[in-house]
């Protein structure tokens, strides 16, 4: 079946360190979205990437879509305790639904 793999599953960082989570697919994606879910909360949309090689920034967050549109990454510079949560990518192939990655749970140690 169509799957989007995400690594790592867990990441613990000291406050101020950088963090990156990666999504990979064996099949070309049409577009990819990123969501953040705070502990006990619900997923909240962060961004969507559509074009090959696209890079978008939101303050300390940088999102990339690979040239082959088979992978994507989210990089957070100088993490803060407010960054704690689980980050999900959600990739769309050719159909009308997004397949969520397994998520990366980020813990930031003050």
């Amino acid at each position, binding site marked *: 079946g169509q799957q989007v793999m995400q690594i790592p599953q867990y990441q613990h960082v000291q406050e101020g360190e950088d963090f990156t989570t990666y999504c990979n697919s064996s099949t070309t994606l*049409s*577009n990819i*979205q990123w*969501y953040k*879910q705070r502990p006990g*909360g*619900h*997923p*909240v*949309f962060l961004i*969507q990437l*559509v074009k090959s090689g696209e890079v978008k920034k939101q303050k300390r967050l940088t999102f990339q879509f690979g040239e082959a549109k088979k992978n994507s990454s989210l990089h957070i510079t100088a993490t803060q305790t407010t960054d704690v949560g*689980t980050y*999900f990518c*959600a990739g*769309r192939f050719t*159909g*009308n*639904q*997004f*397949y*969520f990655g*397994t*998520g990366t*749970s980020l813990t930031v140690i003050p």
Partner: protein
Amino acid sequence: DTAVSQTPKYLVTQMGNDKSIKCEQNLGHDTMYWYKQDSKKFLKIMFSYNNKELIINETVPNRFSPKSPDKAHLNLHINSLELGDSAVYFCASSQELPANGGELFFGEGSRLTVL
């Protein structure tokens, strides 16, 4: 006002019972979804409706039956509950279909515990 609201937030019930979760969105969106999040936080789509019409029906036991009385509401009824149904169920909506890049707006979730 909550954009996507689900009730109940918590549901504890015995195996074999039948239960329903309700969802309403006041965003004027055309498409609504049900997702299941298991204990490992894996989010899996179950159903999607566009203008009250079922467009996605993933491999879900037929004990699960969605109903969309109008495009602002999508309810989920579960018959003969099993232990494995314990999860958090999220309702979501989007203005556009995923094929048109629609971003998902999630409700706060309904945590179902089957004993």
